[in-house]
């Protein structure tokens, strides 16, 4: 029983990263209709940016986070310019191919710049003010601060996102676009800006996830492949474009994987999610939480 709770906790930590990556992915799809196969690379870049900021530039934690966000913003803007702006008059397959091409290019750029060996961020939590004072034992569950930070940050970021979407002009513009792009445009929503903001948001969420995880797991050039697939799994389970669905599905996937590797076999951990997603796509393409729609 005690171990079970520990596995659950581990699942929540992993699941939180999936949520961060998946929410950006689902936003970009929901608002812009772009299926971003390069989203895992946002995560990878966030991880490397964190490592560079802390171990190479020797920045303290907060400026390091600012650095990661800055890098993410640049990546987001560039990705929008490549994947969204020029693709308006192209068919859907072209945008699939181009984001896939971008993913391959970014992975190999990382390979050239950072090398193939996996790297990890050595974060000395004892030096970080608030974080070092957090507890690490919760009854039978032990969570070092680096891990604890991940669900906390996820909750914070999703809360901020929610407030922004709900109560700001930009947020309304985003939601209007998600409802109906043409009408939104007619109502004065500046589509170009919305597109850029959406990509930056997606890149920032995934980049933050990458940075946070880099102190727990290794970062390597193709780390994004697996993460992106997991995020797609989550997005599909949650219903394409559904942010709340992605949050629930992300946690579910994390927990399922953690329990699978604990009680069935570690080798099955990654396969489980994919098999599940193929089944969902076949039998409930609208996602676990979506409503059925027929298109004419």
């Amino acid at each position: 029983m005690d171990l079970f709770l520990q596995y659950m906790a581990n699942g929540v930590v992993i699941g939180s990263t999936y949520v961060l990556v998946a929410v950006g992915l689902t936003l970009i799809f929901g608002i812009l209709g772009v299926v971003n196969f390069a989203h895992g690379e946002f995560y990878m870049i966030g991880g490397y940016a964190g490592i560079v900021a802390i171990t190479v530039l020797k920045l303290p934690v907060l400026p390091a986070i600012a650095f990661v966000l800055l890098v993410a913003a640049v990546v987001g803007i560039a990705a929008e310019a490549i994947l969204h702006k020029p693709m308006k008059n192209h068919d859907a397959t072209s945008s699939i191919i181009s984001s896939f091409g971008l993913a391959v290019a970014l992975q190999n750029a990382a390979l050239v710049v950072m090398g193939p060996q996996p790297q990890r961020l050595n974060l000395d939590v004892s030096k970080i003010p608030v974080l070092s004072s957090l507890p690490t034992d919760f009854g039978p569950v032990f969570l070092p601060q680096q891990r604890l930070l991940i669900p906390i940050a996820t909750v914070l970021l999703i809360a901020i996102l929610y407030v922004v979407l709900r109560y700001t002009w930009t947020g309304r513009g985003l939601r209007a676009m998600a409802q109906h792009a043409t009408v939104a445009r007619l109502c004065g929503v500046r589509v170009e800006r919305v597109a850029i903001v959406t990509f930056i948001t997606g890149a920032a969420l995934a980049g933050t996830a990458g940075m946070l995880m880099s102190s727990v797991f290794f970062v390597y050039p193709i780390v994004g492949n697996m993460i992106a697939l997991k995020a797609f799994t989550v997005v599909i389970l949650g219903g394409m474009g559904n942010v709340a669905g992605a949050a629930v599905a992300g946690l579910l996937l994390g927990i399922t994987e953690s329990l699978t590797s604990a009680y069935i076999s570690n080798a099955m951990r990654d396969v489980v999610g994919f098999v599940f997603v193929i089944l969902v796509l076949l039998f409930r393409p609208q996602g676990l939480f979506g409503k059925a729609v027929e298109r004419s």
Partner: protein
Amino acid sequence: MRVYLIALLAFAGLAVAPFGIGGYETNVLMMVLFFVILAVGLDLVTGYCGQFSFATGAFYGIGAYTAAIMTRDFNTTIWVHLPAGAIVAGLFGLLLGIPALRLKGHFLAIVTIAFQTIVYLVISQWTSFTGGQVGLPMPNAGPVTVFGVTLFEFGSLRSYYWLTLAMTALTLLISWRLVNSRLGREWVAIRDDETLASAVGLDTTRGKLTAFVAYAALAGVAGVLTAHSLRGVTPDDYTIWISATVVAMMVVGGRGTFIGPILGAVFLAILPELLGKFAEYKMLIYGVLLVLVVTLMPEGVVGRLRARAAR
């Protein structure tokens, strides 16, 4: 008829090529041929039938591992492996074709990526069956015997090259016949408008499944040939990057044209050889090229030239 004549001349040229070039170049040519088979195969399902697949590396690997595992367990030769690889990969193609019956566009693309990843996980982790990360060794292709009489051995590079060339010619001929048959026309109809295709009485289920099977079987054949040529298999030869490479070959050459993916495969497979010490950047270049071509010239080089000529 002119097409067959040109093809015949090209193959005659390729057949005498090993006499003029060294062993390294012959190996490069052989690899070009593997990619030609892969790219033409992908074009059947994606270019003609409009069904996306990022799983070429998986079917390629399934063909290769079929050869390696059969060699280990049954001590069979390439003559058994070629049909076996095509059949096993074709069956998996059928399996992947089933989601395609219900899914379109990005959903299908995601499923094929998941399939590619699962196959990679299986061949790299199921150590007792596939050799895991280390892979499996294979002896060379062995002798050709007819009624117990050995005609010749595929031990030499040259004879194996000729076998590869003959198989390439055969797969191209089959593909050419396919796309110019009634079935090929139905594939294009499904790509253009699936609803309309079934409204005019076409069985879209049959159309999509046959396209997937043909694609997967061709990749399986390429896999068998590759496994024998490399004298073994390792999982890292059959990753999603192979899928990406083949997509790039097809897209750069021109989706839905016959000659486009062939030229794309030749160009992109030889490119790293021309890059010298920059060859390690080849995947980076493929990625960038994919983005550029699909953005600026989505119909590919051959597609663009055709459109020019038609005007």
